[in-house]
């Protein structure tokens, strides 16, 4: 398939064996796994920093590595853009020089326009003559992203691009990555151990565990597999639901979302003036399983704005917690204590109400 990144490699290290056979399509794929799962090894094999023992790597039909054909393209000829955790901007160059660095070595670049477009898109045009030392963490990451993109990569790798940023800056940079990725038609692999950040960017996930890919699918499908919870810290699991804006109430700062039938309404708060939502636009709503309360009946006289009726389709015992997969017209995973599950007799087929506060929801426009 054109534009695809194909990898079929093995690598042995003392106490660690790495084996992967995957195809990454153009668009963002989140690579997720606990530390030591092989996320960075995967990126380094693609970029040429680490040489696999066997197999091949090809990008857009070009072989980057092939043991059998004795091909190993050096990293500077691979056209693999790499955005590092700490940005790694060159301190002796201005932002402009950093951004244009890659264009010196790669021809066929419409530099003038490309630079303006990129700085505009990443909102860094006002920083162009500054030096990296005077930039904030978020600005540095945006420049690093722009620098990698201006070198016209055929693959873009982002290695923990959020980890050096605080929560607020993360929320700032995520839309930029999202916006930039939409303009590209290349495989973008974003590594993170923070699942909520990844799934705000993409629903396509590649899960790594102990050097192997355990799943490569859409998050919504993976959410209902038990092994996701085996490799996920409890706090990282997140329900992700795509819904449509039904009505907007700026006075209360509240929007009502609709999805999967008339009765499936969800209330979400927003800041009027900061965000503008229009009726009919699509939104992705995120909700942690442990923020959902399960009840056997509707609860009257409470502050829960959201009460969705559904039926348990599956339960999983996870130590002291019980994961209930509920069909509310759309799939939802709720987490309760095992004791609560026993008292409420929660099991496959039980009808329940999923209760959650409006403030527990996180929503982004898609």
């Amino acid at each position, binding site marked *: 398939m054109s534009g695809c990144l194909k990898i079929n490699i093995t690598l042995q290290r003392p106490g660690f064996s790495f084996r992967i056979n995957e195809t990454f399509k153009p668009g963002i794929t989140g690579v997720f796994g606990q530390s030591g799962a092989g996320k960075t090894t995967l990126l380094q094999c693609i*970029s*040429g*920093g680490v040489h696999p023992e066997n197999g091949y790597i090809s990008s857009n039909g070009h072989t980057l590595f092939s043991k059998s054909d004795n091909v190993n393209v*050096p*990293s*500077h*000829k691979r*056209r*693999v*853009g*790499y955005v*590092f955790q*700490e940005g*790694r901007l*060159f*301190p*002796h160059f201005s932002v402009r020089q950093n951004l244009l*660095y*890659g264009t*010196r*070595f*790669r021809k066929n670049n419409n530099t003038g326009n490309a630079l303006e477009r990129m700085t505009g898109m990443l909102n860094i045009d006002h920083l162009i003559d500054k030096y990296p030392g005077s930039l904030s963490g978020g600005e540095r990451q945006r420049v690093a992203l722009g*620098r*990698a993109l201006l*070198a016209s990569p055929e693959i873009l790798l982002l290695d923990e691009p959020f980890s050096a940023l605080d929560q607020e800056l993360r929320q700032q940079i995520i839309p930029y990555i999202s916006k930039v990725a939409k303009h590209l038609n290349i495989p973008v692999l974003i590594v993170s151990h923070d699942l909520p950040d990844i799934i705000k960017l993409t629903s396509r996930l590649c899960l790594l565990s102990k050097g192997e890919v355990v799943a490569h699918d859409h998050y919504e499908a993976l959410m209902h597999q038990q092994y996701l919870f085996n490799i996920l810290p409890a706090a990282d699991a997140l329900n992700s639901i795509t819904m449509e804006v039904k009505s907007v109430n700026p006075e209360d700062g509240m929007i009502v979302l609709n999805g999967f039938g008339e009765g499936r309404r969800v209330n979400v708060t927003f800041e009027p003036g900061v965000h503008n939502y229009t009726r009919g636009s699509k939104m992705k709503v995120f909700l942690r399983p442990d923020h959902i309360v399960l009840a056997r009946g509707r609860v009257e006289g409470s502050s829960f704005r959201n009460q969705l009726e559904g039926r348990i389709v599956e339960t999983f015992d996870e130590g002291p917690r019980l994961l209930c997969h509920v069909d509310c017209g759309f799939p939802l995973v709720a987490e309760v204590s095992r004791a609560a599950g026993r008292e409420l007799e929660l099991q496959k087929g039980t009808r329940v109400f999923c209760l959650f506060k409006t403030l527990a929801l996180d929503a982004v426009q898609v």
Partner: protein
Amino acid sequence: MDYQAIWLSVKVAVFTSLIALPLAIGTGYVLARKHFRGKAVIEAVLHLPMVMPPVTTGYLLLLLLGTNGLLGSFLNQWLGIRIAFSFGAAVIAAAVVSFPLIIRSVKVAMQMVDPGLEEASKSLGASPVKTFLFITLPLAWPGILGGFVLGFARSLGEFGATITFAGNIEGETRTLPLAIYAKMQVPGQESETFLLVAVSVVISFVAIIGSHFAYQKK
């Protein structure tokens, strides 16, 4: 005043630094970035002239490059080149003694450059040579310059290895320290000696200040 000795010293120091610097940059880079078997031994050998008595260094150079030396006899017999007791010998003696100082400075400067920046440069399409020229070298430059100045100053002051390997030939190998020593042996030359000492102090002071500023630019 013995301008000839001052001029000769400066000439020896300039030649020495210009020969030693590129070698030190190459060696310093290899020592800072590459890992290989026997690296510690090579480093120890390179640093020997820094701790050995300079006379010993001069003597070993004589054994190697003297007219009857291991390499010297070959050069003399087949190519008619005689190194010992010539201007070239003074340069070689000063270079060997100051080389470890320059290497040390260059190696530390290169170790301070984040290898991650070199990796980033390669990911942007720069070959290893271009990465070295555009990233490693400019970032390590203050330290390299500092090493250059230190090496320059050390060659100006070189005495033991020079007098052993290059002799004390006026106009050819009699550098500033050798001239001071020669003048000290002759009664009535105290003021002349003092002037040369003063010049020597000024040059050393300027070199140290220069090295300090080079480091500060970091």
